[in-house]
């Protein structure tokens, strides 16, 4: 089920106001893990948050790697979609989507149901992630 805004999902209740300003992914953004890995899908009382963006600027767009804090652990992840409108002819998603990844680039999960933008094929290092993706946009 999709992450509805303000709905109780993954048993965390966020009464804090949700910022709508910079809608790409930076430090402390709450993200939504999109693959079927156990780490990403088991409920926890805190949502997965970004703690570092591997980028010159601290702002992550589609195709950037970030460090995620999930269930008290640090895990790398790949951004597959964000709420910020990008260049025209690219998709804009209603939630910040992320796929968990190992240090060598192998995805942790085995299936990705949500649509993935085609632009990820440009960088050759994500072919394994794209291989487990079902839908493309």
């Amino acid at each position: 089920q999709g992450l509805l805004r303000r709905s109780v999902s993954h048993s965390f209740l966020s009464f804090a106001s949700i910022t709508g300003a910079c809608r790409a992914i930076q430090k402390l953004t709450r993200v939504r893990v999109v693959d079927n890995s156990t780490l990403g899908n088991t409920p926890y009382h805190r949502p997965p948050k970004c703690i570092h963006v591997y980028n010159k600027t601290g702002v992550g767009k589609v195709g950037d790697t970030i460090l995620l804090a999930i269930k008290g652990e640090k895990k790398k992840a790949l951004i597959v979609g964000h709420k910020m409108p990008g260049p025209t002819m690219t998709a804009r998603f209603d939630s910040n989507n992320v796929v968990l990844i190992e240090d060598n680039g192998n995805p942790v999960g085995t299936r990705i149901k949500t649509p993935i933008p085609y632009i990820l094929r440009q960088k050759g290092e994500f072919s394994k992630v794209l291989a487990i993706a079902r839908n493309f946009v």
Partner: protein
Amino acid sequence: RVSSDGKLEKFQPPPKPVIIDKQKQREERRFLSPEFIPPRGRTDPLKFYIERKDMIQRRKVFNIPEFYVGHVLAVTTADPYANEKASRFVGICIQRGGKGLGATFVLRNVIEDQGVEMCYELYNPRIQAIEVLKLEKRLDDNLMYLRDALPEYSTFDVNMKPVSRLDHEEVPVNKLQVRMKPKPWSKRWERPKYNIKGIKFDLPEKKMKEAQKWSQPWLEFDMLREYDTSKIEDKIWKEVSEGLK
């Protein structure tokens, strides 16, 4: 002439055929795409004239159908990173923006519980085909509130068959009142600034009255904001129809 009875019958001329001149019907209803109308400003009209020439050139090669906000479109784009080098996206048009060659339209669809919006440029050479799958206008010009509406209002089947076009007559208006997710929304759609008629507000009366505090009833009478486009539209329509013959 002898009838079957054998008696002579008075010659009955055959009924005259009724010629429905479809071209005339089509011409009576004319549609000028909104990106042809230049915005109000102090720019040299030569710039808009050159842009219009380029737009007409592109339209001669590639058919851009008539569509409004609320239509369900399927767009095939050329993509170097796609599987068959072409990607198809189906969605409802929620906004048409921009003027001239940079005119854009945003399509929205919900795929696998994930809302996706694609902003396409009308005159981008990467676009290979635009098909209108469902023809219906909505009550508003801008359907951005669909982002805060229940996802069922933005879901459209990707393999939808195009609904057959009735006639070259009016486009039907769908008076659907959309139900929203619980507040807060991305924008305060109940405020009169957005002037939305297509939402079924379940808010208490108090909130609706409070929203009316931000109404600006003097705006519609403001003469400096008037921009009468009828004459400009007539000129541009003549230009465009001549260019596209």
